[in-house]
């Protein structure tokens, strides 16, 4: 069997499940949150009604937030487990080849990418995680911290005002709302482009659902990682079979739905900010 039919396993099962949970909760959070933020628009009213009124939408919002917090916790727990099982030490996990932390190569890749963009060099040989993927990853950490903390303050406002003055709630509202706008905007435009809309991936890359990328594509997309694996002779370890067609179709359907919702939200936000702003 030639390598052409082979697939490389890129994401673990847990990571894929967590990402699906993340998508679901993020969409619910955006839809319910934006309906409140842009309450002066018609779509916000329809959306709020769709979620069963503002109170019910509030329950949905907090439910989704809880899921997202669990996703976050599950990921941290997974990291701890990985440290024990596969890396042995924090140092190996944080500074190894497949670390999510920025390293020297990322800065070089960024520089070379910019050169490539303006036609002054070849496409850089990207590794397991590119710098924009790492940026997305840490953006989530930042978002979890900023949105999560302000959201919790607003959720338990009566408790937190025992320790802070009342205007903290106003500040928290602004931070929560604007950071959410940033997160939503970033995910539904930049992240969508980098992963799905980028012409070579257009219209969608379902690797996050299947976890599998064709060896051929893998070779082209991440030559550095490919080379490393071949050199170490570890490539065979990651080669797997593709899922049956029906599963792939299901993943495509889910992906399309999430993409469509994300784009709708972006269109609504743009409409609200440009045409209905008051």
């Amino acid at each position: 069997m030639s390598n052409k039919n082979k697939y490389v396993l890129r994401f673990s099962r847990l990571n894929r499940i967590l990402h699906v949970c993340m998508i679901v909760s993020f969409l619910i959070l955006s839809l319910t949150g934006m309906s409140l933020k842009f309450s002066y628009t018609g779509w916000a009213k329809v959306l709020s009604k769709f979620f069963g009124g503002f109170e019910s939408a509030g329950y949905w919002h907090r439910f989704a937030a809880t899921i997202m917090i669990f996703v976050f916790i599950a990921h941290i727990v997974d990291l701890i487990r990985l440290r024990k099982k596969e890396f042995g030490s924090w140092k190996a996990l944080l500074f190894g080849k497949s670390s999510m932390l920025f390293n020297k190569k990322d800065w070089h890749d960024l520089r070379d990418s910019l050169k490539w963009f303006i036609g002054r060099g070849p496409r850089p040989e990207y590794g397991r995680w590119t710098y924009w993927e790492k940026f997305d990853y840490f953006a989530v950490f930042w978002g979890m911290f900023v949105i999560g903390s302000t959201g919790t303050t607003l959720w338990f406002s009566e408790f937190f005002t025992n320790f802070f003055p009342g205007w903290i709630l106003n500040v928290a509202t602004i931070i929560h709302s604007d950071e959410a706008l940033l997160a939503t905007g970033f995910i539904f435009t930049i992240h969508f482009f980098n992963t799905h809309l980028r012409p070579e991936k257009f219209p969608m890359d379902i690797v996050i659902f299947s976890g599998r990328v064709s060896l051929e594509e893998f070779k082209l997309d991440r030559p550095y990682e490919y080379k490393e694996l071949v050199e170490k002779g570890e490539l065979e370890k990651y080669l797997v079979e593709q899922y049956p067609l029906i599963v792939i179709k299901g993943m495509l359907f889910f992906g399309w739905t999430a993409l469509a919702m994300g784009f709708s939200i972006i269109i609504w936000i743009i409409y609200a900010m440009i045409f209905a702003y008051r």
Partner: protein
Amino acid sequence: MNRIFIILLFFTLHSRSFFPQSNDDCLMCHEDPDLKTKIGNKTVLLFVNQKSFSSSVHGNLECIDCHTEINFEETPHREELTKVECGTCHDDVQKLYTECLHGKANAKGDALAPLCQDCHGNHNILPVKDRNSVVSPMKIPVLCGKCHREGTPVQLQRNIPKDSILENYSESIHGEGLLKKGLIVSATCVSCHSAHRILPHTDPRSTISRKNIATTCSVCHSEIETVHRQIIRGELWEKQANTLPACVDCHQPHEIRRVFYDYGMSDKDCLECHDNPNIVASIDGKSLFVNYAELKNSRHTGTACSQCHTEVNVSKKRPCETIQKNVDCASCHAEVGAEYLVSMHGSLTAKMDENAPSCKECHGNHGVLGKLNPESPTFATNIPNLCGKCHREGEKATVRYKGSEKDIINHYTESIHGKGLLKSGLTVTATCTDCHTAHKELPHTNPESSINRNNISHTCGTCHHGIEEQFAKSIHSPLVSDTEKKLPVCFDCHSAHEIRRADTEGFKLEIMSQCGRCHEQIAETYFDTYHGKVSQLGYTKTAKCYDCHGAHDILPITNPESRLSRQNVVETCKTCHPAANRQFAGYLTHATHHDPDKYPFLFWTFWGMTGLLIGTFIIAGLHTLLWLPRSLEWRRKLKKMHEDELNSDNDEPVENKSKTEKDEE
């Protein structure tokens, strides 16, 4: 025998002259015009004018016949004597007097109560028929007037239900007959009230009680029933005094002039012609038929034709030919008439406007019913339709009306008042006339109008009195806020004809923009907060203006009574946030991030976050845009490679490229 008889006769006739205390004996002292005594503080003249006494009705009596107490032996008699008892001889009159108001007052020791001598005098009593008598008919009004004219202690201190009695009497037909024409048969006070048994009209035994008044009047007007056909229709009103009007219903006591109709006409005379359904006016052919049954079932069942259709002349063959004027309802309904004259309807009528409604447009004519009769067009539930005859969209009143209220009747019908009246059938609900008044409706621009800005809270307060009281104490009341600015009144928030229940969603949401009409900035910043945003989404469960500020009882926050004063604000928050605390109440409910001076924290937080957002998008966006052309190039490269592979090796297609390719599989 004869001698003995003569001696006995002598003794009998002159017996008294044998004893002391003959009249001459008394006069020995009482002839002196200066004889006086003191009883208490009062000096009493004890002089007896022998001349006037001897010409009085009692002239042939001895002093001691009345002054019975005086001892035969002693001269002069002792000073303290009880009063003369007229009843000793006049026992029948005495009995009447004791039942009389005067007698009862006297028995109670009322110093103002008249005794016999207060009316009749004492030693100089003359017969009633003597024109010099103080109780002769000509002098009765003066005599009674001694106590019953205005300003006397009796009139001031005792409960006398009528006033100006003497003045009214002297101008009445009876008074004029007596005092101006000298007709001593004319009724005086005593003719009606009786002389000695004066009783209040509420006493059934009284001559002036409702039951007895006809009998009393017919002492003189004995044939009244044969000539007075109009009111009493030839029936015996004495027998049915309860159902028929009593004399005083039309002929006011003491003011007997004021009759409303012309003498001698009866409905029967009118109906001779007007009972004919085919009768028409010769001028314009209008039907002149009068449905008498309808009239008899109407509010005016006791009113005769000629009481309204005045100017009839009985001497004419057709008594109504002398009628010049239209029926003037105001001749009886004077107060309503006066109101109507100043009203919009009345002033249009005065200008001869053909659209202006007169009394009968609303009340009907012969069949007029009281407003409490459900059949009446002026019954509460019928009023919107009644007014709607002209004020419904497209009708004559709306064509000329230039104000802002449109589709009034339909809006009213849909309003809480309209629903209460027409759907729930609550007749106490406000109808058109409750706010606009029935007879004095004026445009709201008129300061007299019940719906004028300055009067409206009082008008609404007729029913919503509690609210009016609250409002009067609130910051919006002109009594509290002395300001040049326009203060809101009921209709500014509740509208006029579209008033909704304040607990309906629509009202709750709309009230915020109503407040915002004056409190512009505050309303705008409210919509920047969570409360405002949820309200904007169309939900009423979060705090709206009135949830925190109150509605009719809004007070300045500096007032300790205010819901938002330092003392009360936490409690106010607690109505929705049970665990609210002092710092929680410090939440800025009208905060804006657009004001760096007032809210620097919010301002800088907002711009910090916005900066972060814009920065991130600029960097990431540029990166993406720069990437785009290379990515396209890369796509073409991949595609070419893929095709090359397909050509070189017709193997299974690579997954993940596109759906169509997979479908071919």
